[in-house]
């Protein structure tokens, strides 16, 4: 068996990933502060205003990051991977991976880049980002991206049954990202340990070990 380093992520994918990580970390931290301010401000403080400012900057970053990611999925010259997210294709293969994860089977099929559960998780995360952006815009009341008029996302509040519920959904979305992070990191570590293919470091270096 031969082993060789293969480029798995281009610089574009790596940057997109890490910018998203940093932005979501900022969003979670500032978001918790905005919801339950845990540091009191002094006479000349602008702490809440700053927290909100960084929350918005990070929010724009995540939304734009998603736009870039979708663009790359279709147009990346390195690896346009949109086909890997095919819902029907992946649904067929869920039992295979699930059986592996639940120790019913000792191995699973070889998937191109993402296994079906992984593809679903990423797809769903994209949807949650969009959902969080909409609920966030409704809570914001201002002019998102300066192109939407003031209060143009108020319908989200009506849809969810009042702004208090928009806020609850926005908070639950934050917890989704935290839960996602826990599972994502855990699986990246275990897969690296099991496959010994440098999956974990590939998102830094771009290279994975492939066996033939």
């Amino acid at each position, binding site marked *: 068996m031969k082993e060789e380093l293969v480029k798995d992520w281009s610089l574009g994918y790596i940057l997109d990933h890490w910018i998203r990580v940093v932005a979501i970390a900022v969003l979670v931290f500032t978001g918790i502060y905005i919801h339950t301010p845990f540091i009191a401000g002094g006479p*000349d*403080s*602008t702490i809440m205003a700053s927290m909100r400012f960084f929350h918005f900057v990070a929010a724009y970053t995540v939304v734009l990051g998603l736009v870039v990611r979708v663009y790359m999925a279709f147009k990346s010259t390195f690896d346009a991977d949109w086909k890997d997210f095919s819902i029907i294709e992946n649904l067929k293969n869920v039992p295979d991976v699930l059986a592996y994860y639940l120790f019913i089977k*000792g*191995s699973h099929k070889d998937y191109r880049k993402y296994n079906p559960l992984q593809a679903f998780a990423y797809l769903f995360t994209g949807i949650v980002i969009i959902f969080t952006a909409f609920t966030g815009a409704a809570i914001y*009341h201002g002019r998102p991206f300066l192109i939407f008029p003031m209060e143009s996302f108020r319908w989200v509040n009506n849809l969810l049954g009042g702004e208090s519920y928009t806020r609850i959904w926005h908070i639950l979305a934050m917890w989704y990202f935290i*839960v996602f992070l826990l*599972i994502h990191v*855990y699986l990246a570590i275990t897969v690296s340990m*099991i496959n010994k293919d440098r999956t974990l470091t590939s998102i830094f270096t771009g290279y994975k070990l492939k066996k033939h």
Partner: protein
Amino acid sequence: MGKKDEVSKQFLDALEFRGIKRRDFLKYCGATAALIGLSELYGPKIAAALEKAAKRQPVIWLNFASDSGCTESFIKATYPSPAEVILDILSVDYNETIQAAAGKQAEEILAASRKAGGYILIVEGGVPTKKGHGMIGNKEMLDVLKEMAGPAIAVIAIGSCATDGGVPAAKPNPSQIIGTGEALQRVGISKPLVNMDLCPVNPQYLVGVVVNFLLLGKIPDLDSQGRPKMFYGQTIHDNCERRAHFDAGRFVEKFGSQEEALGYCLYKMGCKGPMTYSACPKIQYNDRTSWCIKAGGPCIGCAERGWTDKFAGFYEPLPGVKIPGLGGVEAGADKLGAIAAVATAAGIAVHAVATAASGRTKGKDGGKK
């Protein structure tokens, strides 16, 4: 401005007699013009419109399930305010709480008005839909509404009870109380409807809508919930006098504290200002004397549809949510999220142990086939 836009001396004398100075009245009309988005130059026009209206615009004021707090908010001024007089001079033909007539006599007034038609119907209070839970003169309130809404030119639902049930419709809502809009739909009447959520309604809001109607002959621009945009266009938070404290992170953590005495932001005391749309900070209550936050209490969100249930409790930032599958157990969103995260961590730990036990990490080929 032509002669006909001027107020007659007789009218101003009449006001003077009621204790309102001519200057104050005209100033008030100017302020009302500003309130409904017109130049203050419209002041005299408004005064003239009001004088004319004094002679003809009949108003019927129906009281359903409520504590009559909205009526109270009009009549409890310490001296007769211009607002009160304006609403007075609009020949209010029928208002159970303040009229002298009672019983048969009151019924007769109502019947006469209904026959004449052309009145503005003001509804205060929610409409009970459970039989026998709300009757006036042996008639179900829903039927009274149906009878009186028919000949009206417009319906104004004032206060949260009238817009969607409000306090009397709070869980478990034993009388199955609904708002005016829903009630009209149920009895199949379609009329121009203005909703004014607030508990109680701000008298200035009603004056604004009525003057708008008298002057321009139409109800003002409404938002998606049928409320005048001019009063429900911005949040409390955006105009709050304590906003600087919010931005600076200076919060009241406990009532009776130093921070409270300093007038810090009430966000952590459950203030709903950031999610409540109403012009309370700008217009205030009791002739611009004060309002909730100025008086030291957090906004409880009474201007929002679905208050109180959807904005309970008054000193909690957010209502609890039902935990799925646990039949009625409620928890805050934070707790719910934390539970999910802890459950995930536990699941991961179990899976990690199982992975180690399975010997997967020891194999050479990994999980792939």
